[in-house]
């Protein structure tokens, strides 16, 4: 009934897409591999399980900000204030827990809600008053920085001692739970894929990408197995005193966000409308899509993710400070999204780009620090990698249009 298409065919389809400029995640994957090989050969510490776990927690906050940013970037807009939105929401969380004695399960939703409100404010200015998002968020970048200072107050830095918030970046799943978590995630991923292709086949549609997907899925499971084994190895220097094994709690948190956001973008009509508005806002308007609402909600989602990132920052630093979410945070997040393959021109990108790009940024940061390079070199290399990604984006865009 349904036509079977050979694996060579689907691979050659994929290759012709690459040649046509739809490179997707390929440059980021290659880049990540090259970086890991280079740093691994130059530093004896880089490829150890301890550093791997460290890398994940280093990348976490920037990755989460980047995941939210992708909603805004897909519209062809930008949110320069997402970093400080994370700071403001982190500060709200810490002040509520430390100074007002609320529990984390009250304070955390409140901080996320505050983030959503900040995003709604930005989105309203962009969508309703038609101010360019670059200008609006440049203003809110300054304003949120001020807000952060005001919330923290005179003291400068506020410590947090809530065990649940701290555990996110400092504690790990037990070895058993790590493997259970991996099995659950891998099983759900495979079953979800099989279910999709099963439904297509039942509807009598050609599934030309099935074998291609199967290769990708098996590769993902293999990488997951490797990562889980590396993370379940004892990482402590002194195992008798403190044992340090298992997947850091932040990994399931990020995976949950990834699945949720990917579901929204690829399976719901709202997600389709985000891509449509980013591709051709006028066409979307004529198709009856409420373009303003899509814009406003995208900014709300972006700042909501920033609020989660704020919690991750707080958990890692055990405190909130006036510079949380500042300096290079936002630029790293935009860099992560673009390096992962999301276009700054709108309409092209996936939430998983943030993970890939976030890892690249963290690997550069981590690897160069291990090799003892000064911060100056680190920034220049990160800048160069971002520039390369933006070039690939711009060139592939030209290729896609001219074909």
């Amino acid at each position, binding site marked *: 009934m349904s036509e079977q298409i050979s694996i060579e065919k689907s691979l050659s389809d994929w290759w012709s897409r690459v040649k046509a400029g739809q490179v997707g995640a390929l440059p980021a994957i290659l880049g990540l591999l090259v970086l890991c090989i280079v740093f691994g050969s130059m530093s004896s510490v880089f490829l150890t399980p301890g550093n791997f776990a460290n890398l994940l927690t280093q990348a976490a906050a920037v990755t989460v900000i980047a995941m939210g940013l992708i909603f805004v970037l897909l519209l062809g807009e930008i949110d320069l204030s997402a970093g400080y939105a994370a700071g403001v929401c982190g500060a709200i969380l810490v002040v509520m827990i430390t100074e007002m004695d609320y529990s984390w399960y009250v304070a955390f939703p409140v901080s996320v809600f505050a983030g959503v409100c900040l995003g709604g404010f930005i989105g309203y200015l962009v969508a309703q008053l038609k101010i360019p998002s670059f200008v609006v968020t440049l203003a809110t970048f300054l304003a949120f920085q001020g807000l952060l200072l005001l919330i923290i107050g005179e003291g400068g830095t506020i410590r947090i001692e809530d065990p649940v918030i701290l555990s996110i970046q400092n504690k790990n799943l037990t070895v058993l739970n790590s493997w259970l978590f991996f099995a659950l995630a891998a099983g759900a991923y495979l079953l979800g894929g099989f279910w999709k292709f099963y*439904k297509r086949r039942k509807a009598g*549609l050609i599934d030309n990408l099935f074998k291609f997907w199967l290769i990708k899925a098996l590769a993902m499971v293999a990488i997951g197995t490797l990562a889980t084994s590396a993370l379940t190895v004892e990482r402590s220097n002194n195992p008798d005193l403190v044992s340090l094994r298992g997947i850091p709690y932040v990994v399931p948190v990020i995976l949950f966000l990834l699945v949720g956001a990917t579901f929204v973008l690829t399976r719901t009509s709202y997600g*389709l409308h985000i891509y*449509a508005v980013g*591709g051709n806002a006028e*066409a979307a308007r004529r*198709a*009856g899509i409420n373009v303003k609402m899509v814009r406003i909600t995208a900014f709300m989602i972006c700042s909501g993710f920033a609020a989660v990132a704020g919690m991750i920052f707080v958990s890692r630093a055990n405190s909130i400070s006036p510079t949380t979410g500042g300096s290079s945070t936002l630029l790293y997040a935009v860099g992560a999204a673009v390096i992962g393959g999301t276009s700054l021109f709108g309409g*092209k990108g996936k939430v998983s780009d943030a993970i890939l790009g976030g890892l690249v940024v963290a690997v550069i940061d981590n690897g160069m620090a291990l090799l003892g390079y000064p911060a100056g070199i680190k920034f220049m290399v990160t800048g160069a990698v971002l520039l390369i990604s933006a070039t690939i984006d711009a060139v592939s865009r030209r290729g*896609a249009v001219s074909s």
Partner: protein
Amino acid sequence: MAEPILSLRNLNKSFGPVHVLKDVNFNAYAGQVTALVGDNGAGKSTLIKCIAGIYTPESGDFIFEGKPVQISGPRDATALGIEIVYQDLALCDNLDIVHNMFLGREEKSGLTLNESAMESLAKKTLDGLSVRTVKSIRQKVASLSGGQRQTVAIARAVLWNSKVVILDEPTAALGVAQTEQVLKLVRQLADNGLAVIVISHNLNDVFQVADNIAAMYLGSMAAQVDKSSVSQNDVVRLITTGSAETVTGGKK
């Protein structure tokens, strides 16, 4: 001639002091292609936008399938089964053919998009239009040629059991082969029983595809005539002078 599916009687529309449509009468018939011709500024676009509900005329009757109707917005027109394909197509390059065809009116099962239902229906619609030029309906619109994009835009318009399809300059930006392909598609639409209204400046296209021709001149309907009763020169005179005398065959 059969009863028109869509009939406009004495339509008037002004923009401030400018009287753009003056007592315009216009008919469209199911199963026929009606060409709407006229010089720039003759009022073609305004007439089309009145039909599509984008403009509301000051006076005039709107009769659809024999009953008077009120069209006060694009949604009313869509609800009656009137679809318009704009000159600039308004497709999203970054979405595939299926998503473009269903944009704004997606098939859903619960919260999620029903991709297989949309794909099947899109395939059926394209097959119904005898479209065989697209390789895969899951490819991005960016990778399509001009004629294929026009095909997708038209297929999008007929997906909804529409009864009247309005095409604004469907061949304006196309090469010879692609024009041929789109004109064949336009003919196919009418043969499938739809009333098709085509705005065009190209009289060769008009004479190839239309069953009857409505010519506008300075905001008035100069004449709506059967194609077989006129020559290309007659239509040129209608467009440039608005005079119907030559058409009735009086003098040369």
